[in-house]
């Protein structure tokens, strides 16, 4: 099992860069988003499927980090308890996000199928 760094959980490693967002009327928010979009190399997805795949991959990774951390804790390695709990919470919230996106997607699909032709 790979050693777990106490400082930052491994989930942080893969960073999702924001896609370019349209300008917002609110000046403070707009400038902030602009700055973020300008600083990182914004990733543009060709298809929505790619976005979804990426989201699922990140959720899976969060789950794996949580599992590894908890496993290391239970195996008696020097992992603080809060680290394992926080990794679990991050995995849980990340899964909830994925679930919400999936629900909305399904809703859209069902709406489409109900359309009268």
């Amino acid at each position, binding site marked *: 099992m790979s050693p777990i760094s106490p400082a*930052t959980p491994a989930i942080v490693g893969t960073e999702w860069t924001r896609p370019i967002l349209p300008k917002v009327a609110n000046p403070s928010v707009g400038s902030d988003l602009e700055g973020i979009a300008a600083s990182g190399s914004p990733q543009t997805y060709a298809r929505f499927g790619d976005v979804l795949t990426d989201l699922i991959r990140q959720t899976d990774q969060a789950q794996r980090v949580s599992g590894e951390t908890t496993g290391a804790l239970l195996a008696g390695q020097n992992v603080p308890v809060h680290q394992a709990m926080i990794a679990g*919470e991050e995995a849980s919230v990340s899964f909830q996000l994925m679930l919400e996106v999936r629900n909305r997607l399904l809703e859209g699909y069902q709406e489409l199928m109900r359309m009268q032709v």
Partner: protein
Amino acid sequence: MNLIPGATSATQGLQAEQLRMEVISQNIANARTTRTSSGGPYQRQAVRFSEALGEALSGVDATRGDRQAMPRLEILPDTRPPVRVHQPGHPDADGEGFVSYPAISVHEEMADLVSASRTYEANLAVIRNGRALAQQALSIGRRA
């Protein structure tokens, strides 16, 4: 992906408080230790929080100066001199019959322990709050 706001800093805070508690427990356990491997009584260990700059995580470039200040704990020896107690029969007594005890007040350590445990709780509260916020934000898209 940084879904729980404040989790990174709070984790560092928890880490630091945990280490602080370990130092306090070491001080309490060695409050009457008169002999160590380096000779002389146990030296009380003090902690110092210093700011370590961690790179901001959520899509913000570190070169822009948006960094998160993380606490980092340094363990330093306390500078107070040992307390000399007249105990002629003690095996570690010097020529004049004085024994050097570490300058540790258990009451002071207990007060520190309370402070450490409350700060730990505060960091936990930050994480709990962050999780609740994230879950509430996710509930925006929910129907019915």
